[in-house]
């Protein structure tokens, strides 16, 4: 387990040594030193994350195939591994069409903003005991705040593409996302009460010998279901590819913009699964034969398998069933969960290592 830490420290010290050499060579000023370190960390994070993103898309399409009893993506690359790269490149070279009377500036900017919103929470997620970019005290609150920006952008996207159908889709997905941030936030309160802090790092610390899912099964279910709805994934993808709206608010987005939107969707999936593992499955705590951050990634990808599994089995809900399901069932469940945690905490406290 410790070989991983030594390897990381060696690589990091090597990078720092290069930066010092460059600084001394070019006589750069001192105040520039700190930002470059942060910049290099960000670049490494984005590189690793884009690799993992391609892995997630490949995992989802392969799983879809296996659940359908068919073998999907085998022809490009060794086992179809290069398929997503081919998709990305092909999307780049497609011609970009902007509808006539659409708002040109918004039509171009929104996919970039969507991508930005999806990438931003990455900085606050602790991937390992010493592997994190930033360690704020209120990182959980920050991530939930970013997530609440998405409906506004989706409405703008629908309005910018000047198409009656995508406007309807945008309204629906906007209302759906706003409706489901409430149970999302409520179910998180239970975890915060137990761990006593809003900092993701200390939440994971608190779960050293007991995972919160054992204490908070109800909270886990409400968080899981409301995050499916938040991501607009299959059983609840009412606006996207719905019967009467061809592709919801994504109809008018062409080549690279569609690629960015699809990428943002999967990044958002990665962030939500990361949150789920941190809050309920004890981020990187796990038996010793694997390094801690491997545990974190393993749990994360198992949760992605669960998302695809739910996507396969259930049919799509209607918009009114969805909203009724949300307000009349999820929100009461979340409140019940809070009450239960109040009753349960005295018995659980000794196990939680604060």
């Amino acid at each position, binding site marked *: 387990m410790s070989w991983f830490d030594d390897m990381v420290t060696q690589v990091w010290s090597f990078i720092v040594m290069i930066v010092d050499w460059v600084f001394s060579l070019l006589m750069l000023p001192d105040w520039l030193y700190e930002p470059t370190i942060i910049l290099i960390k960000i670049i490494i994070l984005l590189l690793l994350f884009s690799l993992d993103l391609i892995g997630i898309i490949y995992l989802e399409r392969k799983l879809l195939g296996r659940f359908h009893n068919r073998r999907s993506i085998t022809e490009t690359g060794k086992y179809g591994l290069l398929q997503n790269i081919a998709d990305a490149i092909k999307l780049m070279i497609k011609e970009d069409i902007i509808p006539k009377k659409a708002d040109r500036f918004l039509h171009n900017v929104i996919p970039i903003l969507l991508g930005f919103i999806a990438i931003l929470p990455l900085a606050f997620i602790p991937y390992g005991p010493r592997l994190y970019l930033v360690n704020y005290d209120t990182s959980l609150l920050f991530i939930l705040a970013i997530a609440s920006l998405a409906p506004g952008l989706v409405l703008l996207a629908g309005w910018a593409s000047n198409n009656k159908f995508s406007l309807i889709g945008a309204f629906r997905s906007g209302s759906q996302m706003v409706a489901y941030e409430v149970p999302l936030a409520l179910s998180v309160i239970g975890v915060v009460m137990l761990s006593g802090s809003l900092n993701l790092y200390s939440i994971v610390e608190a779960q050293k010998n007991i995972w919160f899912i054992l204490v908070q099964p109800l909270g886990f279910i409400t968080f899981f279901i409301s995050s499916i709805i938040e991501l607009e994934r299959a059983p609840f993808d009412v606006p996207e590819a719905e019967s009467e709206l061809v592709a919801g608010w994504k109809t008018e987005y062409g080549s690279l913009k569609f690629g960015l939107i699809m990428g943002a969707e999967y990044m958002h999936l990665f962030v939500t699964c990361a949150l789920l593992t941190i809050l309920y499955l004890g981020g990187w705590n796990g038996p010793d034969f694997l390094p801690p951050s491997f545990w974190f990634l393993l749990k994360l990808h198992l949760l992605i398998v669960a998302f695809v*599994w739910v996507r396969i*089995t259930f049919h799509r809900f209607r918009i009114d069933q969805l909203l009724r399901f949300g307000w009349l069932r999820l929100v009461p469940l979340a409140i019940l969960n809070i009450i239960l945690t109040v009753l349960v905490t005295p018995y659980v406290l000794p196990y939680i290592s604060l």
Partner: protein
Amino acid sequence: MVSLSKVIRPLKVTFSYLFKRPFTVMYPKETLQPAERYRGIIQNDINRCIGCGACVLACPNQTLELMAREIDVDLDFTNPKSRMRMRPALDLGRCLYCGLCVEACPTRSLTLSKEYSVISMNRVDMLYTPEELAREKRLPVKERIRRFMGYYLLPKAFGGKYEKELMKLTEEYRAVVSKYGKKEITKEERDRLLSELEEKMFEVIREFGVEGI
């Protein structure tokens, strides 16, 4: 409330598929054998065929037409008596693979083959001369069009306004050939007239957009 059993049971069914062997046939490596009676592209044995034209009559879509063979080039294919020396040609762009012609063939020379894959970049690849129908050799595009001059399969292959123009030119082509057949014009005059008409036909086909001409 959502009854739990109605959620768990479907999940169990889909989970069981995760560990079953996929049902996919890996196409390029393992291919499915078509059934013994499979109706693929028809095949004609030129020696057994007597040029009776029963298949031309039986075809619901008139995609077969009798055509002079390569060996007797200047046969007058317009007068019906020379039908015995002509063999059926096929336009695969309109063939229904229904097998009615195979049933109508008295000498069993028309048979069904097991091939089924025809992917081509231009429309003229789908016209099969009698030799190609007997799987002897594939002609290049220009020769095949020249072989099909004067037959109704060529204009019908293009359809629409191209068909009207080509049909007029084909009628003139056949008029010249029948005149030569009745010995009213000499061989050089015939060749000159025919090459003029061929040029006009190539012009129309080029406008339709067939590469390689």
